[in-house]
């Protein structure tokens, strides 16, 4: 199986603070991995660093075939990051946001429309300003953007937070579908029951390092 993520002794700093203090992690294509750990353990930094947003300052780090120590830009369009913050323009409507971010990622209008339809944003919500949405609705918009980009690596940071049960089921379905199609998914979550059922493998982040957890036999 092709290795999508390969980290050896990878260090990433937030300012002078070693948020990741030597991480070893290998993830193969098509895997769904639950990333667990207490607050401040380095989960968000791990996802952001894999997306190329935080530089690895030591160790080996290869993602989607790119050595991130050398180039942490070129793999980015192939990565979808659902961050804790939406990354949306409050002043624009739902449709404008999805359209802009889809175009900016190089995908086209049809992808944007399809993604909005899947997430139930094509009706009345499409014309509403993002500023007026609830946090769960914003999540859906961000998810639509991610879906429209068709990423090969999904990095989901607390994806279930703020979503109602229907939306959670929808999200889990989309993740499974993407993984079946060959995408790799990392889910950082505290919702161990739901995310644990989704992921075949669990890793624990603590004190800036990552350890594999015994697989509790899941999907």
């Amino acid at each position, binding site marked *: 199986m092709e290795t999508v993520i390969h980290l050896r002794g990878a260090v990433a700093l937030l300012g002078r603070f070693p948020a990741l203090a030597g991480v070893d992690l290998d993830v193969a294509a098509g895997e769904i991995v639950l990333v667990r750990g207490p607050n401040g353990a380095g989960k968000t930094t791990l996802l952001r660093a894999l997306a190329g947003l935080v530089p690895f300052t030591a160790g080996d780090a290869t993602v989607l075939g790119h050595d991130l120590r050398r180039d942490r830009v070129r793999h980015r369009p192939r990565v979808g990051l659902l*961050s804790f913050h939406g*990354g*949306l*323009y409050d002043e624009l409507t739902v449709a404008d946001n999805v359209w802009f971010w889809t*175009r*900016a990622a*190089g995908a086209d209008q049809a992808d944007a429309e399809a993604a909005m339809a899947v997430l139930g944003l094509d009706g009345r919500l499409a014309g509403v*300003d993002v500023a007026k949405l609830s946090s769960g609705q914003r999540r859906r918009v961000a998810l639509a953007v991610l879906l429209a980009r068709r990423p090969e690596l999904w990095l989901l940071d607390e994806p279930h937070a703020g979503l109602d049960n229907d939306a959670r089921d929808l999200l889990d379905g989309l993740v499974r579908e993407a993984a079946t199609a060959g995408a790799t998914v990392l889910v950082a979550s505290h919702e161990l029951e739901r995310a644990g059922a989704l992921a075949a493998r669990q890793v624990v982040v603590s004190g800036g390092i990552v350890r594999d957890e015994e697989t509790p036999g899941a999907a």
Partner: protein
Amino acid sequence: MLRDALLIAGRDLRVEWRSRVATNQVAPLALVIVMLFAFALDPARGILARAAPGLFWVAVVLCALLIVQRAATVESGDGVRDALRLTALSPAGMFLGKVLAIGAELLALEALLLVGVIVLYNAAPSTEGWPLVVATAALATACIAAAGTLYGVLASGLRVRDTLLPLLLLPVLAPVLIGATRAFEAAFAGVPADGWLWLGLLGVFALVYIVIGALAYGPLLEET
């Protein structure tokens, strides 16, 4: 790159159109500044009419500061910077797009201010001065928009951005203020031939800032 620039410019103008900050706040402020100059300088003695070109550009620069800050605020939303870095857009295209959007807003503002100056200061460009006025406004706008976008991203992400940006940007705009004011003076005085020389200076300024801005925007955006 041009496609990226148009995409960004379109988005910035759309945000502006929907939030109406430029039309509801900056444009009225421009008129307030025009009024304040009249209070500070005695209109009866003709100082206003003589100083009109300079006052016009001071008002433009002050309002430009607000527009630049506003444009930087749009990008400072939670996670927006990260999201932009994850796109396939070229940084140079993003820079040009923001310059285009700020430039378009500035041109509209300058048109409004020119009307204000003509009406309130009783000073207007001579008939043969209009081509110079238009050319000066276009070039000076490019200068202000390019420098403003570059310094805007330079100060972005800092908690002290709003106070630091004027200190960094305003001294840098001094040559633009001098050049554009002299060119306008020539156009208002009916001797446009004296003014064209200054367009060369404005052109060099715009070129320097567009080139360095296009190069610097990517590296500066990368910094968290």
